[in-house]
């Protein structure tokens, strides 16, 4: 273990950063437009006659995506983020409830709606731009499929439609405006076939996983989906488990990971687990033990390449200065964070600091040239685990050196 192999990554990554960066930027700009056209979806229920222009308004500032706009969207977005679990199903369930109740109401009101239509059209055009009619039609067809149950989920409960149209739209403001995530080396994720993305884990709350998911979803040229492996605590909590499953996450166990890789999915894993997530602020960017190397064994079994992923910026969102072990035991959670703002400011303390993030996907480590029984070789598994760990750690240090400031 001590003589871990450190692969020479310097030349490679430096050479790649040239093409990598502009591509990421271009991708993000393109997706921004896509996002803008997609946002009104969530605003669609507001098109019901009883509430003509309620919901599009908070979305409006998003269109001017200058830095000044970021603070404006922040409070709204943040609130959704920290009780994201609680707030979200409210939103999605809300549509269901709204149309449930709306159905009988709107049927006789269609005459009234026509009368309102002209006034509404003018208002909507001002709020959502010239193409509002197409967006509304798109949103209504989405709504129609949702309320009639006409959509597909896979065996893991992944609801692609909901993830693409709603969950990603909720996370995107965080990604683009709040954390201003810079994505590097996204082309290291293959366009097809299984791949195992191994990332560092930090930030007290697992926002880094979600941001990595948005990064892959929005920036990968083939539009791949990152299927995260989450801790079992996620699937015990109500609401959180429902959302996690719908967003394509599944339990971090060998069986699920192997099945997903065999089906050619991109699987994301954070082998540090709670050790990384709940480490004190003083230990930031020091990688913890990488589990028992189960992820390497799974990759070897399926021959999927391992893509090391380094996330910079997540460590500082909730600087954890203390840990109340008693409270954690009482609540049945692995740690109870004490930050300069939490729990002193109550829910306000849950607002993450707006740090500047970088997500770098590294050179893939191939595993397909090993025989399948290599997964049973503990030395090889340990060596590969160390190689992945060292790669991530070194990339972290490099990115930290390049970083101008925590917030910019």
């Amino acid at each position, binding site marked *: 273990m001590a003589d871990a192999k450190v692969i020479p990554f310097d030349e490679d990554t430096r050479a790649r950063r040239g093409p990598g960066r502009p591509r990421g930027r271009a991708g993000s700009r393109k997706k921004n437009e896509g996002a803008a056209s997609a946002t009104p979806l969530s605003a669609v229920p507001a098109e019901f006659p009883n509430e003509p222009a309620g919901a599009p308004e908070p979305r409006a500032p998003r269109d001017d995506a200058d830095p000044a706009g970021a603070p404006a969207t922040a409070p709204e977005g943040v609130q959704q983020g920290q009780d994201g679990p609680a707030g979200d199903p409210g939103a999605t369930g809300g549509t269901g409830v709204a149309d449930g109740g709306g159905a009988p109401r709107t049927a006789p009101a269609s005459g009234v709606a026509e009368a309102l239509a002209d006034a509404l059209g003018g208002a909507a055009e001002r709020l959502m731009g010239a193409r509002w009619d197409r967006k509304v039609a798109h949103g209504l067809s989405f709504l129609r499929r949702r309320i009639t149950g006409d959509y597909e989920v896979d*065996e893991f409960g992944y609801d692609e439609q909901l993830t693409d149209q709603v969950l990603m739209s909720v996370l995107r403001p965080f990604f683009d405006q709040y954390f201003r995530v810079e994505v590097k080396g996204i082309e290291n994720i293959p366009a097809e076939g299984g791949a195992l993305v191994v990332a560092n884990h930090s930030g007290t709350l697992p926002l880094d996983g979600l941001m990595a998911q948005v990064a892959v979803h929005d920036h990968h040229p083939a539009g791949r989906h990152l299927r995260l492996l989450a801790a079992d605590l996620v699937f015990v909590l*109500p609401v959180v488990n429902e959302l996690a499953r719908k967003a394509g996450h599944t339990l971090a166990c060998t069986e699920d990971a192997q099945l997903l890789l065999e089906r050619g999915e991109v699987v994301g894993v954070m082998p540090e687990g709670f050790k990384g997530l709940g480490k004190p602020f003083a230990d930031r960017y020091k990688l913890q033990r990488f589990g028992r190397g189960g992820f390497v064994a799974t990759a070897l079994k399926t021959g999927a390449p391992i893509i090391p992923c380094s996330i910079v910026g997540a460590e500082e969102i909730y600087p954890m200065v203390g840990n109340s072990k008693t409270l954690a035991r009482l609540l049945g959670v692995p740690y109870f964070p004490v930050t300069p703002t939490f729990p002193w400011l109550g829910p306000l303390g849950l607002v993450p600091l707006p740090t500047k993030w970088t997500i770098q996907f590294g050179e893939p480590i191939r595993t397909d040239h090993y025989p399948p029984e290599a997964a049973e070789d503990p030395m090889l598994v340990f060596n590969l685990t160390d190689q992945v760990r060292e790669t991530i750690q070194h990339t972290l240090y490099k990115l930290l050196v390049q970083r101008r400031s925590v917030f910019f």
Partner: protein
Amino acid sequence: MGKVVLVTGVARKLGSRFVRRIQHDPEVDRVIGVDAEVPEHQLGNAEFVRADIRHPMIAKVLAQHAVDTVVHMDVSGTPLGSGGRAQVKETNVIGTMQLLGACQKAPTVRRLVVKSTTSVYGSAPRDPAVFTETMPPKSLPSGGFAKDAVEVEGYVRGFARRRPDVAVAVLRFANILGPQADSPLAEYFSLPALPTVFGYDPRLQFVHEDDVTDVLVLASLDARRGTLNSGTFNIAGDGVLLLSQTARRLGRPTVPVLLPAVTWVGQMLRTAGVTDFSPEQIRLLTHGRVVDTTQMRETLGFAPRYTTAETFCDFARSRGPGLLPPDRLARTVDAIAAALPAGANRT
């Protein structure tokens, strides 16, 4: 000489369906139906023997008719007619023990097919998302039908060890639905509003009644070329439905209830004898369960005719519309789209 098939649990709909289906098979000579109650349904040309499988008399039936194939379908979660949970458990467990004991003493028996359930995997948040046949559950079912099924499978494994010359097939069925289903889950879906557990949206898998009889026939006859029909197989339709999706497709509103309240109310209702909605059903409707069917397709060589969604569609059609029929909601949305200013329709 054709086969002599003995089927237990023929007083139930599923059992009688299977009897009617298998007696038309050219390979089958005679079909003997066994149950403690006289079946209400037609059994066709099959002979009915009124016998309780909990009594040693079943051994005489086996010997008398020189039975070579035993299809054990009397493993069920709901009581037949009167009788409570204790009697169900007794039939499931003691009945299976007696039947297997009788089979062990009957030299003519060549094949045993047992109807089991995927609830032997339990449903827990810490389980893998998709169960395969070889996966042991993280937490064994604590009681109810699921525990019976686990015990039954244990006895069947013991029997398979003692009689290696008998081909044993254990079929673990996902929730069986269809136009005639009368399972607790079918009753649940017939409620005007579906109580759900707040914050959980379980993944469900269904298998159609027709597929159940088809796969039982496949397992009862000699294996086709290139397939093997002894062993343990998960049987489920393709695909997955979420509970929220089933409610929307049924057109029934859901009423989310907090988990502690669900458990408590369920217990109250069971104590009062209003319903026999068991804790394991609540666990299923909280955490859901999905099984892998690769073995069923590749080893058993069975391809279900209905997917999970089609099975549910067939079931929903038989139940009539709910309070919020999907087609009416869809028409409402279309009406809103049409009522929008002319611009919306240009696209």
